[in-house]
């Protein structure tokens, strides 16, 4: 299978690989996928004043899965948190020219974004209710 240049670029030079402190109250963590299915993505965001100031990922998966999560972190950085929820898997498919057999990689990336944002929101809500 031939990879698109953008997939190869993200694979060779992945953006934002790493981890944020998952116990930090400003950090949201999403972990999706399953090892038996051949892909697991961990995506983390750091939020200040409702803006995503940092994003990191780690991915176990094929080149397209790595590229999808790498691209997701790139797109998330600097975005207001609610706009992050607007990223659709189809945007990722288009940007990386993913073939049909790799569409599930983009779906997983969208799920990871949502999971990370929801995790952050959940934490924020808990802190608020604890303060009440």
């Amino acid at each position, binding site marked *: 299978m031939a990879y698109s240049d953008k997939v190869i670029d993200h694979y060779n030079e992945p953006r934002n690989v790493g981890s944020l402190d998952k116990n930090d109250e400003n950090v949201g963590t999403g972990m999706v996928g399953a090892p038996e299915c*051949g892909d697991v993505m961990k995506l983390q965001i750091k939020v200040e004043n409702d803006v995503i100031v940092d994003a990191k990922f*780690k991915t176990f998966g094929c080149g397209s899965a790595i590229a999808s999560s790498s691209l997701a972190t790139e797109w998330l950085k600097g975005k207001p948190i609610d706009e992050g929820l607007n990223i659709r898997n189809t945007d990722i498919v288009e940007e990386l020219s993913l073939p049909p057999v790799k569409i599930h990689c983009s779906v997983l990336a969208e799920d990871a974004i949502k999971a990370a944002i929801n995790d952050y929101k959940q934490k924020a809500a808990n802190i608020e209710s604890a303060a009440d």
Partner: protein
Amino acid sequence: MKTPIYMDNHATTSVDPRVLETMLPYFSDTFGNSASRNHSFGWQAEEAVENARGQIARLIGADAREIIITSGATESDNLALTGVAEFYKEKGNHIITCVIEHKAILDTGHMLEQKGFEVTFLPVDKHGSIDLDELADAITDKTTLVSLMAANNEIGTLNPLKEIGKLTREKGVLFHCDATQGVGHMDIDVEEMNIDLASFTAHKIYGPKGVGALYVRRRKPRVRLSPLIYGGGHERGMRSGTLNVPGIVGFGKAADIMHEEGAQERENLLVLRERIFQGITREVEYVYLNGHPDTRHPGNVNLSFAYVEGESLLMGLSDIAVSSGSACTSASLEPSYVLRALGVGDDLAHSSIRFGVGRFNTEEEVDYVILRVVEAVSRLREMSPLYEMAQEGIDPSSINWSAH
């Protein structure tokens, strides 16, 4: 050293230059149809084919008259199973094979089931070995054929052909061996091992693609087959069609070289195989060997690199040709059925790489491959959330993952 490096010799091998040289005249001056009985063009072609048939037969200890030329091992496997099942259906409707056989056997078996035959697929242990007692128990008075491979194409595990042949002979059932990967890489002698039919192909032994053989025993017992392809009655009526003369000549030469040099070649491959295995496992942790530790193809190393997905690893080895049992490398999205049958977890099946060392690989190439694999695995593990968990002391298999 030239890149890319080819180390996928179970998929196919390059044509040995000596083989190519032998073939070339049969594309030009000596182009006759070996079935033309009334002129010298035909006679020359026939002589070349018969010479090659002798060379092919000698490689497995058979007689030239027992070699049926086919288009390759897939056709040979189809012909053996279907041909025997159909011809002997009055005697019985049961055949026995194994879950880790090549798809050419498994899919033919499934087709026969559709047609009303009964097929037993024997399980294997964690090394890919069958249990001989289980085989003995599976044979009934309805069984006509046992089909078991010589060497597994993914994990390299060898079957005990001599013991299988002894058993099938005692029980009076035929023994077909898919010897595609085994020929030249292990001892195969159809007399000593009581093999009644054997499939193999030129392109796995440094010959051309598109030409294979089915050995069909002529005496004690004489094996009969219903053909798959009808026509001019070539190949004793078992496989009609004008013979691929240059291909057959090449197959003969490849078999001849293997017969002369195979023993030494196995020694060389073993050295390279151990060098890869040691070189990688010395540098990288969480690496598991798939297949039998000792009883295996001399050129086969199949490793699972935990926490790294196989296709992404192949992508990191862009100047090295190897293959993976990962689902992502196939269209099916299912990981290798062979590794699954061994009880290798799907996570490790996704992480497997098959190295197939061959005649033309060098120590220098092996060292380069080791270096590149170590580098790529380390890089991908830095990127792997599963490796991170393992480092933190969390066993990823203890997590309740949601399958997707």
